[in-house]
């Protein structure tokens, strides 16, 4: 076990964590405010990736693909929130089951449109090369993922803690009726948050498609890891999503490297311990 190998795996873990964070941040944002567990997030990821792929193939520009995917999935999320979720507001279980149904429809439709073969999104040219430090060679694109993850984390943190919108969202997490009574259109905020959460999942799909590839079933795999991230980090917490992503990203990467046959089992243990000690997760609120 050379140190280069360990550093390589460590970097893989961190880049994967950044990707998981991008997905989980939207998920946890939506849950924190709206109490909606969006199990459609895996499908948002997959469809977003495929849309990005189509756009990138047509335009040859990775960044246009990212933006189009985010906007398209954001609008899809908005349509779902306005058109369907609205009718079961306040009923947590029905909302979850509804998003499961939608996830199946989206995943199956993407199988029809984009086929069942695994496809990779080509990374932008200037990121397609690797850099070398000592005897370690590492693809630049993966560091780009970390950069985007960090940027999104910073922007979300700023929005949540330093802006009026963030104050409304934080207040909504605590007491929705009160916010409503103060004359703030909380339903508009709901829609906005769902749109942003879905858009982030779509964006993640393009980012992930360039190093994990897209295939039927990728949606539920990433959803599982996203769920474990928020279970460990605490539902509704941005800090929790950061820490949870790092824990899951590193464990999953090292687990796959050392025990390839029992890969998922390595994230099971920490999840179990977390639920035993702190059922609400590291940064979750105790209800």
């Amino acid at each position: 076990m050379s140190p280069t190998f360990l550093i390589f795996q460590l970097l893989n873990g961190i880049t994967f964590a950044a990707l998981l964070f991008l997905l989980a941040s939207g998920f946890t944002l939506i849950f924190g405010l709206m109490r909606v567990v969006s199990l459609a997030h895996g499908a948002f990821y997959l469809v977003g990736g495929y849309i990005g792929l189509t756009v990138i193939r047509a335009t040859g520009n990775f960044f246009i693909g990212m933006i189009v995917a985010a906007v398209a999935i954001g609008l899809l999320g908005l349509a779902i929130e306005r058109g369907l979720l609205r009718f079961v507001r306040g009923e947590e279980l029905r909302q979850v089951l509804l998003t499961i149904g939608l996830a199946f429809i989206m995943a199956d439709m993407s199988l029809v449109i984009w086929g069942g073969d695994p496809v990779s999104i080509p990374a932008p040219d200037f990121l397609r090369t690797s850099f070398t430090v000592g005897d370690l060679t590492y693809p630049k694109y993966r560091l780009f993922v970390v950069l985007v993850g960090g940027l999104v984390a910073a922007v979300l943190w700023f929005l949540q803690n330093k802006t009026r919108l963030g104050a409304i969202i934080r207040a909504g997490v605590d007491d929705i009726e009160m916010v409503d009574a103060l004359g703030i259109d909380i339903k508009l905020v709901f829609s906005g948050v769902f749109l942003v959460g879905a858009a982030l999942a779509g964006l993640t799909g393009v980012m992930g498609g360039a190093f994990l590839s897209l295939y039927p079933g990728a949606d539920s795999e990433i959803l599982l890891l996203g769920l474990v991230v928020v279970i460990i980090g605490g539902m509704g917490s941005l800090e929790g999503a950061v820490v949870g992503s790092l824990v899951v990203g590193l464990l999953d990467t090292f687990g796959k490297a050392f025990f390839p046959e029992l890969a998922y089992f390595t994230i099971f243990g920490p999840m179990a311990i977390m639920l035993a000690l702190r059922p609400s997760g590291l940064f979750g609120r105790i209800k």
Partner: protein
Amino acid sequence: MSERWGKLILVLVLLALAVAIPYLTTSFYVNLFTEVLIFGLLAMSIDILAGYTGLTSMGHAGIFGVSAYVVGYTLTKTTLPLEFALSLGIVASILTAALFAIIAIRTTGVYFLMVTLAEGMIVWGIAYRWASVTGAENGIRGVPRPLFVHEYWQFFYLVLVVFVILSAILYRLVNSPFGLTLKGIRESESRMRTLGYNTALHKFIGFTMTGFFAGTAGALYALYNGFVSPSAVEFAKSAEEVLMVIVGGVGTLFGGVVGAAVIIFTRNIVSLYTSRWPTIMGLIFVVTILFARNGLLGAVRSLFERIVQARRGRIESTEEVVTEGTESIEKRGAATHLEN
């Protein structure tokens, strides 16, 4: 008293019909009915948690699959006898359910659903990656069916006998003091705790027991299908089984069997014309959640009640025709919302 006799007669008629199935139809449909009974058993085990305890499990395909895999592996890779293989499979499922329960019962509502979903996915992950035992995506092929139930109709009767015995046990269970305690936990766990009930222990035992029923269904499935693959334990299967419970009506126990019949027959009819079953399943999910709040059976029943009442000339608003199913699911929805 007359209602009781009515129920008994209904059960006897259904039983007679079930016994007559192999005489009335072709092997294709007999096999479908076999599948309905196997998955109906699994759906009822999920309903013990979802309907009676208020905990919706999205990981029961995992518990079911553990037994199917253990039975498949034991029968193909070892020379151990059938009884031993089946017992081993069921015990493995019970242990899996106990392990799932220890972790999941600390949570309620959507958290419970998420945790059980993750647990079920982990079983899928192991089935998919532990190639030396599970055969990865190829699965375990050629699980032999014992000679005495080799013909499709013989196997149907075996499954029918197991089904009748286990559903009688389940019926007894939900109407026992234990079952009533579970219902009490569903309505208000804090109140039950105040009354001195060890609610965590009740939930743990309830969950672990479902492992027995799901495990038996899994063992039968391995023999029925002769083939076990990761697709038997994937998330879509867990969701499909929960859908069976929802379609049949949450908290009605036998509704799960009706739901299983609806889903399995629909899937077979749909697959004659298109391979878009997941889309159809998703649509059934959405439509049931939005329009049939207490399942298709509940919807049919309230429609029926409305017609009867309209005939009597007392047309009431739909809100007043509340069946038991709606009441509990709405209360639960409201309760989980408030608790959060």
